[in-house]
């Protein structure tokens, strides 16, 4: 009775979490040898569904069929034995281990008493060659770029003989070049007969690579469509439940008499172990403009953010904020002077996950005397204010007292935005502000940044997403190997030109 056509089927899968149904009677099927995409808003239940298919969660109801046969997955190892492997959005890697060690962990070659590293290396190298997933087998994973780490994750899955590969938001953390490379890998896998199931928020990508697309909304399947017949607008509407306009208002900022720069870097250089991680960078951000930093990740963006926010001392050069020499200013002083920060890694740099929503909402302005009476916080007033703030930013949370960890990624990001923008800053420093967000949330974040610009604020935007940069920026600086290799005004920037600058590290004269 095995139905050859369907490789993997989900039938009437239901998964509840306290307070919500993450997957509600979900049914869909994946063909053998296809690339199947799953899309949906933040919190739609995509990751939950994938974790069920990979044996990590147990469904409360429903059935999984593999090649037509019902299977009950007893755990991730069992799923792997059956040929299902998953690459999680938050990589499941041991940073201190080498690539080989990460790949073979749990299914090591050799006897029980000896780890046959030579055999392991041979297998890993063979796999890497076959699927063109080049990565240094002896490198420590902590030293790898995100794209390389992802390749390690894919190798792990292939090493276990997976026929079905599940990837949760594989492109969210990749730069355009890496995305292209990943898609080549996925193509390669499909040609070798593997089945790929992946989640993405980027509808253009989905349309470009997938064969078929399943849309989830609030835990339910809205439908499955063939990529060839689908359009971006149609998908977006299915996801959100209303039409989404892919057009942004760019209200113009008021004409200012005082266009003095809010932020100015003058020949800033930062040495680390004798190497210049930032190398002679000069730039200015004026009121009412969005200055974007483009570049392949790892070219100094993180360090630049640290310099601007006060987390990294400069070796040479000057940092001026609001007209004053700010090189020696602490983070707190910069924030007090009117700088708002949206860090790139919200879990590690922006939020204290075990703390409550209201506590996270006041993080950074927690010294504000307005929150207090005498030395003590006025809890009632504080909560009222927080509730109003996050209400304006449509942060969806069961209550103010849950740990912020319980919020979906999109809502966490909106909380950060609320927290930073409600402080009435003059300068916003935003790094990867829409990473991992769905179209609705991205639309919201973008419009907030543009609204801030329209109020005369300056924005320094650091992003690996060219679409984002082109949509928002007034001027664009390209960072390569720690140097600012070019600066283009908005109307001269094209993806091609930027891409060339990013890769070449300089434009031929």
């Amino acid at each position: 009775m095995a139905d050859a056509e369907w490789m993997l089927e989900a039938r009437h899968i239901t998964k509840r979490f306290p307070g919500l149904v993450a997957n509600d009677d979900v049914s869909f099927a994946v063909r053998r040898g296809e690339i199947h995409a799953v899309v949906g808003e933040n919190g739609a239940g995509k990751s939950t569904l994938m974790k069920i298919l990979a044996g990590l969660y147990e469904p409360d109801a429903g059935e999984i069929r593999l090649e037509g046969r019902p299977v009950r997955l007893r755990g991730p190892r069992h799923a792997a034995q059956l040929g299902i492997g998953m690459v999680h959005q938050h990589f499941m890697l041991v940073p201190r281990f080498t690539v080989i060690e990460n790949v073979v962990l749990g299914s090591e070659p050799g006897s029980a008493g000896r780890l046959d590293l030579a055999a392991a290396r041979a297998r890993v190298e063979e796999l890497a060659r076959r699927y063109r997933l080049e990565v240094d087998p002896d490198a420590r994973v902590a030293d790898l770029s995100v794209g390389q780490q992802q390749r390690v994750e894919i190798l792990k899955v292939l090493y276990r003989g997976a026929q079905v590969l599940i990837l949760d938001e594989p492109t969210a953390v990749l730069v355009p070049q890496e995305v292209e490379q990943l898609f080549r890998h996925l193509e390669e896998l499909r040609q070798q007969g593997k089945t790929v199931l992946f989640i993405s928020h980027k509808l253009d990508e989905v349309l470009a690579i997938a064969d078929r697309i399943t849309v989830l909304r609030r835990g339910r399947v809205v439908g499955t469509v063939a990529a060839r017949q689908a359009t971006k607008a149609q998908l977006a509407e299915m996801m959100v439940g209303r039409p989404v306009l892919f057009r942004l208002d760019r209200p113009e900022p008021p004409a200012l008499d005082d266009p003095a720069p809010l932020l100015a870097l003058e020949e800033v250089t930062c040495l680390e172990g004798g190497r210049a991680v930032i190398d002679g960078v000069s730039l200015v951000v004026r009121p009412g403009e969005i200055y974007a930093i483009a570049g392949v990740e790892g070219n100094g963006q993180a360090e630049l953010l640290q310099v601007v926010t006060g987390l990294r001392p400069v070796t040479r050069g000057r940092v001026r904020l609001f007209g004053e020499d700010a090189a020696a200013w602490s983070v707190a002083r910069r924030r007090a002077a009117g700088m708002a920060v949206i860090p790139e890694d919200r879990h590690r740099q922006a939020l204290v996950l075990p703390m409550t929503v209201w506590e996270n909402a006041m993080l950074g302005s927690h010294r504000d005397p307005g929150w207090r009476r005498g030395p003590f916080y006025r809890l009632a007033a504080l909560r009222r204010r927080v509730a109003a703030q996050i209400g304006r930013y449509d942060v969806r949370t069961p209550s103010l007292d849950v740990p912020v960890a319980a919020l979906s990624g999109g809502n966490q990001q909106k909380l950060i935005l609320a927290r930073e923008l409600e402080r009435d800053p003059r300068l916003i420093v935003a790094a990867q502000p829409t990473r991992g967000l769905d179209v609705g949330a991205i639309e919201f974040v973008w419009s907030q940044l543009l609204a801030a610009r329209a109020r005369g604020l300056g924005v320094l935007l650091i992003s690996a997403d060219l679409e984002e940069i082109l949509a928002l920026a007034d001027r664009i600086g390209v960072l390569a190997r720690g140097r600012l290799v070019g600066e283009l005004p908005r109307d001269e920037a094209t993806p091609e030109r930027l891409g060339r600058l990013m890769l070449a590290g300089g434009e031929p004269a």
Partner: protein
Amino acid sequence: MPAHEGTSVALLASLLALLAATLRLSLPVLITSVGATFTELGGVVNIGLEGMMLVGAFASAWAGITWGPLAGIAAGIAAGGLLALVHAVAAVRFRVDHIVSGVAINLLAAGLVRIGSYRVFGTATTSGRVEGLPPIPVPYLGDLSPLVVVGFLLIGVAWYVQQRTPFGLRLRACGENPLAADTLGVNVEAMRVAGVVLSGMLAGLAGSYLVVELNHVYVEGMTQGRGFVALAAMIFGNWTPTGAALASLLFGAAEALSIRANVAIPYQFLEMVPYVVTLLVLAGVMRRSTPPAAVGTHYSRGDE
């Protein structure tokens, strides 16, 4: 000049004696701290090592007097391992805070050995003489216990097991990223329990060494905080068997020096020497230590 020659010979003799004393005094801490790398690499903090060493000492005295030194050593290892199993079950299975469980283990051990001692030796605090293994004569250093050899072999074995076997790889993965290990089918609980029990067995072995080989007698409280010192040595040694062993040797040397140095400083300051030396070394040369990422945490899957 014969007189000069005489003093230099005497100096050499005392240096060798110092070296031998260093070896003797280091060994219990060394064995325990090498064992401690197993529990910590698996992600479990074990401050019950002191208690495990103590029950190891007691059990080896009892079995050693009854059946001879080998049985004594085996009993010491078993007793340390059993007590470690209690800690493992509490901390890993039932997710009790590792530190609290360790504190409770130390209390348990202190009471148990006293009860046991009354029953077995008829007195709370000390046993009769325990015969040791036949010593190995080493030129210049005198007789050394075979366990000294075992202890030093242990460093290599521990390194090999941790770095070159599937077991070691899985164990370390559980201490670094248990979720990752779990998704790859590694039984996180079992690995962590194994790490704790191994550390307890080695602490028990260290206790046996104190009784069967070094002192030939059991005395209540004879472990003298060496379990805690071993923990410090393990951290000092940056969570590696070799580092832990070197740190233990440093402690041992400092202690031996404080016993044998004839210097005119207030007596109490000699007492402090090993600890002050450690602090100075830490303050001076220590690089930032890097514990296993998930040490001290509990693990459960997200949807439970």
